[in-house]
Structure formats: structure tokens, C-alpha cells
């Protein structure tokens, strides 16, 4: 399968002008994914009021196209909000595996970033021991401005990433 894909790509790249098509599709995909992040909130702790306010009337994350969703199958991004215990981390991993590619993880607050006030607990873990984290948002709890800035950083990251495997 991989060999066939490589063969297809080699054939496609030999066509003059294919690079332009690649770049256009790449740009469109980046633009669409950047402005259409649908997060699912994995809320275990007390950062959640701040996170709720991000979709509220003062701050409104939907300006950036961020639309909170209920089911993980349709989502692009997990927001891990609050402390993650050793037992709960397996659920984060399970949730991550249920989500379709491309998928991102945002760690909101001090606890999922690095255990926070539970630094000496036997049960608390940093969430990046279980799933790859794209953006860390520090704070205990982070202000809604900080969470929105975290989403903007995620947008920047999505815009820069390599999508079709083109070099340069």
C-alpha cells in the first residue's frame, strides 16, 4: 500500500504544474482546518468555569470558528481541563483514539500540564505522558484570555504543519 502511494506520488510529481496544485490544496486545507476547530471538553476539574466562559458572551471563542461539540467522533481537538489521575488518563487515551485524524490535544491549566498543586500526589499525572499534547495553557486556573490565546496558538500550529507531505 505504502509503495503504491509512493508510486502514485512520483507519477503525480512528474506532471508539470503539480506543485502549484499541491500548494493550493495545501493552503485551502490549512485555512479550513485553522478556522474550524471543534473541541470536545474533557472536564475533570475546576478550570471548567473559565473554559465555559470562553464560549460565553464576554469572550466568545466562536469568533475563531471554535464550536464546542458533544460527540468525539466529529471533533478535532480534546481540551483536557482539570487534574488527570492515573485512572482517568486511560480514558483520555481512549477518547483520543476514538477521534478521527487530524487530531489535537490542548492541556488547559496547571494540572494536565504538569500536575500543578498535586505535584506530590501518587495519583496525578501530566497528560502528555499518555497522549501527545499540542498546546499547553498555564495558569491556575488560566484566564479566558489565556485559553483563547492558546486556541490561536493552535491555529498557528495547524497553519504551519505539513499536510500533504510536500517538502519546501
Amino acid at each position, binding site marked *: 500500500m505504502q509503495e503504491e502511494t509512493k508510486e502514485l506520488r512520483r507519477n503525480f510529481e512528474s506532471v508539470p504544474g503539480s506543485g502549484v496544485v499541491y500548494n493550493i490544496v495545501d493552503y485551502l486545507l490549512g485555512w*479550513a482546518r485553522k*478556522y474550524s476547530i471543534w473541541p470536545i471538553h474533557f472536564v475533570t476539574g475546576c478550570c471548567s468555569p473559565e473554559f465555559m466562559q470562553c464560549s460565553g458572551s464576554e469572550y466568545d471563542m*466562536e*469568533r475563531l*470558528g471554535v464550536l464546542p461539540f458533544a460527540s468525539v467522533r466529529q471533533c478535532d481537538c480534546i481540551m483536557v481541563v482539570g487534574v488527570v489521575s492515573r485512572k482517568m488518563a486511560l480514558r483520555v487515551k481512549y477518547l483520543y483514539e476514538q477521534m478521527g485524524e487530524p487530531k489535537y490535544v490542548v492541556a488547559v491549566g496547571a494540572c494536565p500540564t504538569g500536575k500543578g498543586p498535586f505535584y506530590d500526589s501518587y495519583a496525578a499525572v501530566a497528560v502528555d505522558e499518555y497522549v501527545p499534547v499540542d498546546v499547553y495553557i498555564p495558569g491556575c486556573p488560566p484566564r479566558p484570555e489565556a485559553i483563547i490565546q492558546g486556541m490561536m496558538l493552535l491555529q498557528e500550529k495547524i497553519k504551519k504543519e505539513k499536510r500533504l507531505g510536500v517538502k519546501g
Partner: protein
Amino acid sequence: MNIVLTLWKFIIEFLTVNAKPLLQIIVLPGLLWVIVYAIIAVWFERKFLARAMLRVGPYYCGGRFGWLQLIADFIKLFFKEMIIPRDVNTFFFLLMPVLLPSVPALAVILIPFASDWVLWNVGSLGMPMFFAIAGIAPLIPVFAGWASNNKYTFIGAWRVAYMYISAEIPMVLCAASVAIMVGSFDLVVIARAQENMWFFIPQFIGFVIFFLGVMIQSERTPFDMPGAETELVLGWRTEYSGVLYGFVMFTEYVALQAWALMFLTLYLGGFNGPVLFGATTASHIFWLVIKFVLLVTLVILLRVIFPRLRMDQMLKLGWQYLTPLAILNLVITLALKLWGVY
């Protein structure tokens, strides 16, 4: 000057006579209208909801007003991984999202957009045909929920079946009262009969019942139990991802469109309105579209105002209040018809 006039007349005649079936299939009740309407409606709903909640809504995508938001969403959904879980019935799981928008879109072709602008004019079979096609609609979510092999989708699917049946019986009874009043099943005749008085005045009970039925059939918020997030993740839509979810999202709005157009035709004068610039067909279409936009705005506004009902409350509403009222309405209409009031 003369040549330009002749050419203009030729173009108008070509568009209204020769190319009419093609225009109907591609543009107005057909493909383009459904797609453009669905995209604009989703964008409008998000923006309008945001405004009602004192938010801004989509803003940065596409410069001003976030007007490219839905395009971005659809491109993203199109290129997202489509997960087919291991235990689903693959055939039905993949078939149902494709069938979903096509059934309400098929019902729309029976609606008269003007007295001479009906894509599929079946004459006196219009209303029975509409309800026959619309009667297929609840089967599709039921199959989709069953094929997904998930307890949430299954419960959501049965909720759809319960709700549709409890709404459809009063709706058919109300539509039957209108047909008795006019003396015809032909939708064009029914719309024409409202030239002087729209039927929401003589058929007020039916008007209210049918409006609630429209809300129930299109799963709008006071009646969105099949997709109740707090109980059933996303109801029967839970397992759909990627482009399949795109289809499912699109469907809610196509269903709303079919029922809303039927509601307008039965109770709010259909295409009737003052004729503008002597162009009868164009002004008929214009008035129907204007009424349709206002109705959709009202339905979206109700989503902001009301919380969700419980399932048993909804069934009680359907069977205990709407159905007896609809039968009462039918009896009153029959009596008045026999006495010769209508």
C-alpha cells in the same frame, strides 16, 4: 434599441418557457437552492444564536461576518478521517447519510413556488404524495441508529420514531381539514384559494398544531430529544464522522425546509402576495422565499428561548393534546363545510 429589446424578450421567453424544466431541476426547487439554502441557514443560525446570546459568532473566517465559516467547516469535514467502527452494519451505515437529505429534498419538488412553477405537478395527488414521501423520513434515522450498533444511537433512533409518529398523525389530520375546506388535494389550488384570506384565520387550531409539527419533524430545539447532548451524546448521529456527518448536519435543514414550505403553502398563503412590476411568476417566488426566510428566523429564535422538553412530556403533548385537537378541528371543518360556511 429594437434589437436589444427583441434579444431581451427572447432571453426571457427562453428562460421561462424552453429552459424552465432545466432551471427548475438545477436552480430553484432543485439542487442549487437546497445547497445554498442549507449553507446560508447554518451560517445564519450560528450568527443569529450568537447575537441572541450577546456574542459575536463566527467573525474572523473570510474577512467580515465570518461569511466563509461554513465553507471552511465543509472542507474540513470533507478531508477528515471517516471512521467506520468495527461492529457496524457497513451497508446501512454508509447508505443512510446519503438517503437522509434526498428524501426531504424529494418532498420539496411537489411544492408550488408560483402558480406555474412546480417541478413535479401531480395535480390532485399533491398533498397525499407529500405525506407519503415525508412518511419515509423517520425510517432512515431508525436504520442509521440501528446500523451504528451503539446504545446511544439506538435509543436516539427510537426516540425519532416515537416523535415522528406522534407528530405526523395530527399534522395529516390538519392538512386533511384544509383539503376539505378547499375541496381539493392539489397544492396549487390550495395556495390559490388563499388569495383573499390566508388559512391561518379560519383554521387557527390547525395552524398552531401544524407549526408545532414542523418543529417536531425537523427536530428543532424544544423537541430535539433524539440528539439530547446531556443524555445521548448526539443521539442517532453519534457514530458519524467526517463527510458522513456533513451529510447528517445538512439534513436537519433540508427537512426543516420541506416542512416549512408545506406549512406556508397550507396556512400562510403560499406564494400569494402583491404582484411586483407585472412579473407574476417572479413575484410569487419572491414572496414565498421572503415568508420562508421569516419562518426560519422564527424557528431559530425559538431555539434560543426554550429549553428541551422531556421525552414523556413530548409524547403527552403529541397524543394527549395535539391529536384530539386535530380531530376536533377536522370535525368542526366538516360541520362548517356541510352547513355551507366555507
